[in-house]
């Protein structure tokens, strides 16, 4: 058990827009966004207009300031609030299981020795050749057994 998943904590995460967040941190971040960015936009528009910049241009410039403010919000937010994700780096499952799933869903892998030269080289380089070959031999042995019985 890692320190991140303490037992007994009440569920404190919510899933918003496809990932888990802490509600408190999300609201603080949103609050930052909807206060700071529009404030930067409105203030700079007022400043540009009162210094005599053409209204259309003042709008565009302050839009750029607003976008910059949103980026600042993102950077500050990322520094204040750490991601609520667990990242595990792992060697994944067994290759046997994967080949079972592939043969069930996609179709037989086949005899790697009948692959085109390019595919064969690719499979050998990836270290898949021996497993594919063994799988093919097992499959053909199984099917000849079935024919006999």
């Amino acid at each position: 058990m890692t320190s991140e998943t303490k037992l007994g904590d009440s569920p404190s995460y919510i899933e918003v827009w496809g990932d888990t967040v802490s509600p408190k941190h999300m609201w603080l971040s949103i609050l930052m966004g909807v206060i700071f960015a529009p404030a930067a936009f409105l203030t700079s528009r007022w400043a540009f207009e009162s210094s005599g910049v053409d209204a259309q241009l003042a709008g565009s410039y302050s839009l750029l300031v607003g976008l910059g403010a949103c980026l600042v919000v993102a950077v500050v937010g990322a520094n204040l609030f750490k991601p609520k994700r667990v990242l595990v780096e792992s060697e994944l499952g067994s290759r046997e299981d994967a080949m079972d799933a592939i043969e069930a869903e996609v179709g037989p892998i086949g005899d790697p020795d009948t692959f085109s030269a390019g595919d064969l080289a690719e499979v050998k380089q990836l270290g898949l050749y021996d497993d594919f070959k063994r799988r093919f031999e097992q499959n053909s042995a199984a099917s000849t057994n079935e024919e006999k019985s």
Partner: protein
Amino acid sequence: MEELLPMIGWALGMALAGAIAFGLLGLVSGTDETATIAPITLLVILLGVPPVGVFAFFMAAISAKHITHAIPTTLLGIPGDTMAAPLLRDAQLLRELGVPHIALRKAISGGVLAALIAVPLAVLFAWLLTPFADAISSVAGWIFLAAAVLIAFLSKSRWAAVIALIPFVLLVLGLNAFTLATLDKTLTVSFFLGIATGPLIVDMFLAASPVGRKTLQRADKRRFELAADSRTWKGRMPSPFGVLSRGQLGATAGAATISSATFVFSPVAMTVLMGELFGSRVKGAYQRLTTQMSVKNGTTESTYIAETLIPLIAIGLPLSPMAASVASPLFNAPPVYTIDDGVPNNLHTLLEPWQFLVFGLLAVIIAVLLTYPFAMTQAHRAAKWIMQKVSHEAIIGAFAGLLVVISLYEGGVIALFVTLTVGLVGGMLNKLFAVHTGVQFMGYYVAVLSVPGILALFA
């Protein structure tokens, strides 16, 4: 020449900006294209960037995002964005086989090849369609109505989505009448923002309500499994043409050609269909999986490129699912680009066909040059960094801020209320009834372009 140099400067600069911004955003899982590319493109337009720059920005953004979206899809097993979803199962199987890097390499190589093919092909198909453009434009109102019904029917909700168009169109008409009375103008940008970020807005409402929060609660942090780092080539990095077998090159090119011509279909549907069509002919499960990775990711590029370019060059009205959603600002972003009464004043009228070809290719090449080597060498580190450093809270906060800023820009507090209204209603339609943003964008155009014609018939 004097005119050409600044044009090239804008195109290069904006393509770089688009490729970097959306190449990075492609790494963040679940960043839907409509919700991210449409608002930022809108911003670029409103800022006053010249047409060539806007176009190059957009083309580089979509090409770059659909290269890097393959990184979370293959290495983390979560779709990078909406278009990555059809690749997920094939990527998972290859990941479990212990070769996630080959899934990634096949996917991005297919993307590069298809993007480069799609630009000239789309320009060609647009040119073939141009003689019929006037005829199409003159009945555009009816085409929008038919397309809206078709796109709605093809969504997961079928007839429910078709019927749901009625209240949605009425909502748009009502809000337009309201803003016409209060602001003396109708809004556009705020509708797009509301539709595009509806899924986020509805989640925020749910999170704010004690009743709704229960549906979002999770006991644990979301768990992601990052595949171990592996890179198998020695020495020079292989080119896309070295990564794909001859059969895969042919299949990807074929899929790119077909999906470029069929610009009226949903990009996700085309991606699934092309994968089936070209995958099922391949013998051997390993070859089929790797071919599908290449063909499908290639199709995510070619559909996006062709569905943008063909209506843009030939007609000037957003008559494809892509043009009506992600690429919408290129057609209609008042006061800069407009399609008032169905008469385009946008990139269609501001750029020549050769400019679409040259600057489109330029933007795609820049995006590819930046993202392909990056994805080939840095995928693992980048995926890990994003997952560990960039919190979802930070992204949500920034987008919430952007929503408010752009709304205030278009029409002050009233525009903000319109965005909120459209976002809540549209988000609920999306979340509860799978009436996706493409249907809603068509609904908006039905309200603006079809309804006046229909009412005139009965007047």
